[in-house]
């Protein structure tokens, strides 16, 4: 039932991106990463929708935009369960989960104020383990942070 509703709404887009299965608690941060507040495109946001997987989910539909890999990698850190649907001419041309790379460069801020990355003009680097519930370890200071708690740059 819910899946059907979602499909209908997806089909209503002529072209663009639907990001589905976003954990509700990550929804607004995902919207921020997508830069939605600065867009003039039509955007639909669903929040606390019931999901077949149990927990409440969020969904974001953006008309006329396909997001680059860097942006989708950022989303994967805080919402590893999200899926990305790309729509062209009312058809879903691709549907795949977001992909969390093994190494994140310049994406997450290190939570350790005494880390070199917070004190030098340089890119951060984190190694990712447990991709379904990611843990990030700073390549420089070895501090760890849960993906869900990560501060995205």
């Amino acid at each position, binding site marked *: 039932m819910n899946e059907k509703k979602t499909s209908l709404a997806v089909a209503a887009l002529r072209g663009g991106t639907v990001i589905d299965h976003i954990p509700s608690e990550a929804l607004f941060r995902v919207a921020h990463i997508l830069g939605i507040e600065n867009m003039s495109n039509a955007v639909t946001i669903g929040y606390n929708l019931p999901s077949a997987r149990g927990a409440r989910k969020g969904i974001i539909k953006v008309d006329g935009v396909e997001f680059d890999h860097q942006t989708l990698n950022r989303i994967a850190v805080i919402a590893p369960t999200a899926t990305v649907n790309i729509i062209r001419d009312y058809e879903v041309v691709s549907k795949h989960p977001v992909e969390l790379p093994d190494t994140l460069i310049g994406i997450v801020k290190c939570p*350790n104020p*005494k*880390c*070199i*990355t917070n*004190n*030098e*003009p*340089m890119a951060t680097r984190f190694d990712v383990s447990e991709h379904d519930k990611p843990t990030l370890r*700073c*390549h*420089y*200071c*070895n*501090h760890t942070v849960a993906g869900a708690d990560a501060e995205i740059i």
Partner: protein
Amino acid sequence: MNSHSLVAIDDLSRNDILAMLERARYFEQHPNSHLLDGKVVATLFFEPSTRTRLSFETAVNRLGGRVIGFSDASTSSTSKGETLKDTIKMVSNYADLIVMRHHLEGAAQYATEVTDIPIVNAGDGANQHPSQTSLDLYSLQKTQGKLDGLTITMVGDLKYGRTVHSLLMALRFFSPKFNFVSSPELRMPREYRMLCDRLGIEYHEYTDFTTSVINESDILYMTRVQRERFSDIMEYERVKNLYTLRRSMLASAKPTMKILHPLPRVNEIAQDVDDDPRAYYFQQAGNGLFARQAIITKALGIDPLK
């Protein structure tokens, strides 16, 4: 990125560690040489540490090398706002090796990424201090005749004490048995206990520092319990003397047991322990010279045994 750098003890394999200790043993027998003739070693101490700097500089001098550098960032260009990258690149023009200490965590790792000359980490904040672990390992091997199968009791601050974490990591290759003695607030972090579980390393946790745990130990590794580690000062006052070693506690300890401490100590080892033959912390610090000679020659690709 350069391959001869030493940033963290965790980067060394079992064979790397054994080879390093063999070098240290050689240097204990041959402390003075000309192996570093014509070499310039920079000691960049962005954060002062007289003890560590003197040990490294003595190591270079006894190997016949020259030392340049600074002992305090306030006398260097860092105080004028120069980035670490720029300082490292500038010094790389002059030196064959950089030994650096920095208050920021990850500084040495970053330094290896901006220069081609080898970097030896002499401490980066609370993160890594591999030459300390090297001298600890050398002290273990020298006093026990082996590294394998030792019973090591770690006492005091096991939560924040980087020396005990690094020692644990290095010993994971050598079938140790650990006793962790600390207050609940300062117990060994979960990630290290999980590592022991995963590798099948036997460990026991105690909140009481008893003679029975001392008596079964080959090594007693004491650490400082610092007041600033406690959120609750009352808790600090309650536990601060519970993890103090006194000579009376050593009555039935193994005669071959040795007491180690990374120094400086405050009150976790009573003064009367100093006269016991099992007190080893001063010799342990002295072993730092040989361990650092081993680290420096390895980083420069010089093999004294050939």
